[in-house]
């Protein structure tokens, strides 16, 4: 067991995970933040994507102990007070999702990408999200949600 402290969604948290425990499992099991999903546990599907120190990462490919001292943002913390932020709102308006299992990772990846590329076009957005698998939508509605969020952001 390794004692760690880290900031999760702006709140200091601590735990004593085994070294082998992934950040994904630590978030879900130890911190009860089950919004981050496990889709493959080998780093391909992107469902587990969270933001660590400003970068989107696959939380199934990080050990919890490696996040000690870091700032982690999960889907639960993307918008203030658990409401809907502008990206989430745009995705709601665009009917972006169906079963919702890929959603947290997709939203976090999109959020991270948009914050660095606010004027991205469709093909750039597709490429940025190509590491997040969705089995329900065929992606178009997700892309539309991201484009809408970017557009609204520019107009603000």
């Amino acid at each position, binding site marked *: 067991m390794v004692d760690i402290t880290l900031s999760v969604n702006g709140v200091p948290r601590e735990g004593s995970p085994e070294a082998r425990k992934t950040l994904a499992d630590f978030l879900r099991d130890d911190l009860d933040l089950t919004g981050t999903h496990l889709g493959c*546990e080998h780093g391909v599907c992107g469902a587990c994507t969270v933001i660590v120190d400003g970068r989107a990462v696959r939380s199934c490919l990080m050990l919890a102990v490696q996040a000690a001292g870091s700032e982690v943002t999960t889907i639960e913390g*993307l918008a203030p007070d658990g409401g809907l932020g502008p990206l989430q709102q745009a995705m*709601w308006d665009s009917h972006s999702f169906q079963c919702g299992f890929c*959603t947290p990772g997709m939203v976090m990846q999109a959020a991270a990408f948009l914050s660095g590329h606010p004027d991205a076009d469709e093909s750039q957005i597709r490429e940025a*999200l190509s590491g997040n698998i969705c089995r*329900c939508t*065929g992606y*178009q509605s997700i892309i539309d949600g991201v484009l809408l969020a970017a557009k609204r952001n520019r107009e603000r």
Partner: protein
Amino acid sequence: MAAIAAERYTGASIKRSEDPRILTGAGRYVDDIKLPGMLHAAFVRSPVAHARVLSVDVSAARTLPGVVAVFTGAELEEMTVPGPDALMALMGWAGPTPEFTLLATDKVRFSGDPVAVVVAESRYLAEDGCELVEVEYEELPPVTNASFALDPGSPPLFANLGDNIARLHSRHEFGDVSATFADADRVTDFRIDVHRHQNMPMEGRGCVASYDTDSGAMTVYAATQSVHVSKIAVAMRLGMGQDKVRVLAGDIGGSFGLKIGASREELAVAAASRALGQPVKWVEDRGENLTTSGQAREESFDVRAAVSDDGDLLGLDVKTVIDTGSYPGMGAMVPDIIEAMFPGPYKIAALGFESTAVTTNKACYVAYRGPWASETFVRERILDLIAKDLGLDPLEIRLRNVAPRTDPPAVMITGRPLVGVTTRESLERIAQLVDFPAFRCRQAEARAQGRYLGIGVATFIEAAPGPREPEGSSGPMGNESMRLRLEEDGIVVLFTGQMPHGQSHQTTLAQIAADEFGVPFEQVRVVVGDTDVVPFGLTGGSRSATMTGGVALHGARQLKAKVVDVASHLMEASASDLEIADGQVFVRGDPASAIGVGEVARRAASGQFGDGLDAQLEVEAVFDGGEGGWSGGSHCAIVEVDAETGVVTVERYVIAEDCGALINPSVVEGQIRGGVAQGIGAVLLERSAYDEDGNCQSATLMDYLVPTACDIPRIEIEHLETVPLDADVNFRGVGEGGMIVAPPTVVNAIEDALSPFGVRIYEQHLSPARILELVAAADPGQ
């Protein structure tokens, strides 16, 4: 006072009520469930495809700290009641039933077959425990393909069957097959193969089983397409009364046919929970999902086509062999649906159909989005091949063969009337949406520059739910029930057996009920996922739009009548003078008379009306599908094939579809696009692969490849004006259509792109390497 307006939700892309929780991580999937004292299960699985199990030594695993119990296959047999697969029993399967145990005892039949279950304080520890279980196997020759399975010399998977025939060969004829073939100008033979691929939902199978020792009740938190079917499966296998089992389901991360009933693993977990008196969770990981949850579509077709020189498809004679994998699932039942659907929307006058299903040492055949889809693939492929032989255009040959819409309707040679089918219109609309002549020019120019563009068309119909059956409906796909209730807070609650896993029922059903009853959308709540409160139901077969949309509509109407009746007493007005709109009951033309529906419910509950009035504001509605109907459409794809690398890009994808009246266009389009994406995936990327020893080679997402945002283009969808068949319910299902017709659409386009090389395609999976092989075989100079 302003007039109270009635809003029209049906037909509008109302935002989903599911989304606020989905978008904020507040969805509740099986793996999110945590119960006090909950343990975790992991399975010891066979590394070999076919073997006798000589011994299972769990002693080391049992002593690992953190491991609470280990149950072998033999122990689980003592703890459960042997019986047939619940889904097969439900669907009335009368064929040969293989005998096998819940977990493997004497033999394993596919790589990944579960042999023991380890229950521990965490999944980590359970997996550690699995590594300590020692199993001795005596390998047997693996049966890894259908032709070996058909050989009587192949070692039988199931001792009681004596061979590897899961379903005996049968032949049926419709129309005069021999005369049709004798009189035809030409008879051509084709052999077409569809490859093994699979559902791969983002969430795998899993459950939390929680047995209460005091009450003897079992609660199962499931990921399922029907809580009632899961309940039946659990009760049967555990030998429990139905009243002692409750199945709950929250959010489900996709299924596409996979999660029906209860898998062997889920039943083992339920048995473990009962034995331990503690909740036990099992959620499969991706490796398990890819190798053991089940696979689909491995079917071969020998087809003989009787054709006129002008391009009339007069008759088909089909022999199919279905590789159903190891344990029974849907495989043995699917030939019936394939046979029934084979004529499609065409004038085919004669059909011969033979089928055999075999068992092999591979994962078992499960339902996958349009399980009968190969009939469309084979038929639409053959039409293109015939068109090429005769020098006809692919649109032309289809338009020539489409059954005209007549009254009374044309009847498929296999028996179902083609009522309301708009195939002709959808093909004509494709020709308007896509400029074929311009494409042919562009194609020719591109070829001159060494680039290979192609265009493909395919059309389909699906029984969503299908036309009214003269004999009435029966079986689990029959009538649909719903309970509707007006609560005292004015909320209209719908209790449905539907179990949405992406279909947005909580939104679409609320739209229909809100419109019909007269409350705002936000004042309707759809309750799913609890066997204690919802009626029997199952989400699948593209039937819910009609069946559940219909029962919601009629049920809301019935409930409204009751409410109006009560209100008429309250308001001392005649029921026929009352309206409900925007959640208010009022006398027509007198907005000031309005009272809230909640108020009516409160007053009804107060008992002020005495016994003379039925003041129970609840109805149990049943709907038989009304006139039912077909869904269908035509798809068109433009692709580019890189002839040096075999890489295919789908440049454009256009759809003209007819699903009747749309409840929510965005939901409809999302379902269609998702299905098309899976169809594109099947052709270009997805293959459940085994080597000759029966080892699964697509055991991670690095080898089972599904399409990403860079692989699926924008999909243009046009909805056709439908032919209304029913006075009220003209919504038809779209869940499966995209996946059914996208594969032939894309393969037709690829063949068109490669026509300069003389390529003919008789298979569905076209990896880049395979495309170069086809080019080299057709044009050795390449």
